[in-house]
């Protein structure tokens, strides 16, 4: 019997299956409603709301200093970058120029956060594809960054180190030494990462040509960050709209044109080197200066709209503040990278196997609280 005769004889029909909300490959409570025919995915419908905490609404209740700590809980892997985004938006409204010292320290910690986030992503990407070893190696190295944060900021993940106008307090005396030690050690670890996972032939077979996102789709769906740069869409906010001290450092924007899972993987691995290079350029000459510009105890933004965009580890985060002149904002909106990146998932996952969807999702690096807020 030929395949066609077999198909005519056996009737197949599509059915639904829930992936999540507690699926190990989703890294959080994301529910994907899959329409599948056998093992072929016909439709992916993300269902959100399982970790909605109404952060945007809570921002309308809080003062501008209090908003900052809520953004820690959105994209918890790049919490410092979220804090900086809110602080920059408020500083824009107040027309404060922070000192060079604050700018440089913010940039260094931003990049450390990016390395920590990419480390964790590398670990769980391997784990999603069945290579548990990478998870332990990534967490070992991430631990050193967490120690730096713990010593300087007081917390490992939800740091809340920024206040509108500068930093909450100065860096710890050990900060520079610890960061240099980490950079020296981490440089020897990335080649290990490549030996363990990047060069592996099974990994290539799972990722190359899987989940191809074209440049046109990336632009039309609003995809940003390493996901978009894997498709050749130059979208780095640090390069195109520099904030903090990014205009005074020299770094490359990593671009790959393949658009598949392996290209997105390579973008993030190369970004580790770029982050190291940025930190190395800044760590030796942190300028002296005040760590906090003088602000009033009750911050009141002038009437108007303020928008600030930053590049988190996952893409472009936009903070929109609409103020009526009170001590609370009238409306706060976060343009989170995860939400836009998720929207393209259905488009690129048609007619692939379920295991390929897992690989694609891993390369998108979703953080669900960031999608849901």
């Amino acid at each position: 019997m030929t395949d066609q005769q077999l198909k005519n004889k056996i009737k197949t029909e599509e059915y639904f299956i829930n992936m999540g909300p507690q699926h190990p490959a989703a890294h959080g409570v994301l529910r994907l409603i899959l329409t599948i025919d056998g093992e072929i995915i016909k439709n992916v419908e993300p269902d959100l709301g399982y970790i909605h905490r109404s952060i945007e609404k809570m921002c309308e209740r809080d003062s501008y200093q209090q908003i900052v700590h809520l953004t820690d809980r959105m994209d918890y892997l790049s919490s410092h970058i979220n804090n900086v985004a809110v602080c920059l938006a408020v500083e824009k409204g107040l027309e404060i120029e922070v000192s060079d010292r604050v700018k440089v320290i913010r940039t260094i910690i931003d990049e450390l956060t990016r390395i920590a986030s990419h480390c964790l992503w590398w670990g769980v990407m391997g784990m999603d594809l069945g290579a548990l070893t990478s998870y332990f190696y990534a967490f070992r190295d991430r631990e050193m960054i967490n120690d730096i944060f713990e010593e300087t900021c007081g917390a490992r993940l939800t740091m809340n180190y920024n206040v509108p106008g500068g930093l909450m307090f100065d860096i710890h005396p050990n900060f520079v030494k610890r960061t240099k030690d980490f950079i020296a050690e981490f440089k020897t670890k990335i080649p290990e990462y490549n030996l363990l996972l990047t060069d592996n032939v099974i990994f290539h077979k799972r990722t190359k040509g899987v989940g191809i996102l074209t440049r046109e789709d990336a632009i039309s769906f609003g995809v940003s960050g390493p996901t978009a740069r894997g498709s050749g869409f130059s979208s780095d906010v640090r390069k195109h709209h520099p904030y903090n001290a990014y205009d005074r450092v020299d770094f490359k924007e990593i671009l790959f044109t393949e658009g598949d899972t392996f290209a997105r993987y390579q973008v993030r691995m190369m970004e580790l080197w770029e982050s190291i290079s940025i930190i190395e350029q800044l760590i030796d000459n942190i300028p002296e200066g005040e760590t906090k510009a003088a602000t009033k105890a009750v911050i009141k933004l002038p009437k108007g709209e303020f928008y600030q965009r930053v590049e988190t580890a996952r893409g472009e985060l936009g903070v929109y503040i609409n103020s009526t002149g009170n001590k609370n904002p009238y409306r706060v909106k976060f343009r989170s990278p995860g939400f836009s990146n998720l929207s393209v998932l259905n488009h690129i996952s048609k007619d692939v196997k379920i295991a390929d969807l897992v690989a694609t999702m891993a390369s998108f690096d979703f953080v669900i609280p960031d999608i849901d807020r």
Partner: protein
Amino acid sequence: MSYFSDIYKGIKTLLTGMSVTGGYFIHARKGALTQEYPDNRETLKMFDRFRGEVVMPHTADNRHRCTGCQSCEIACPNGSIEIIWDRAVDPETGKKKKKIDKHIYHLSMCTMCGLCIEACPTDAIVWAQNFENSVYDRSKLTKILNQPGSSVLDGIED
């Protein structure tokens, strides 16, 4: 033919990866181990800035630095701090002065943002480094920070 070269490549990359893990297995260097937390409890020292919980330090004669200005209560984003205060007559000047009765701290609601400690004008509250806060009953996490019978140190004004 590609079938055999695939097998060869697969085994080669497997051995490449195992050379890394095997290297760590043979030379189990210092630093390849994580902290063994419950076993090193005696020697474990957290960083000075580590945010464990908010405490109010008292001197030996049961005096604290809190004037009851409520800056921390206003700064707190989620109402973790409540201050019950009163006005007491100062015996020297005869003027009425604010004084705290109870400084209530809900550790169960605290997000460790540190805004209260930043807001305090007299450094009356500080971070403590103990992090083993698990209890069986949530009401045990509501703490009164000022000790019974304590009073504010002389010369502290907000």
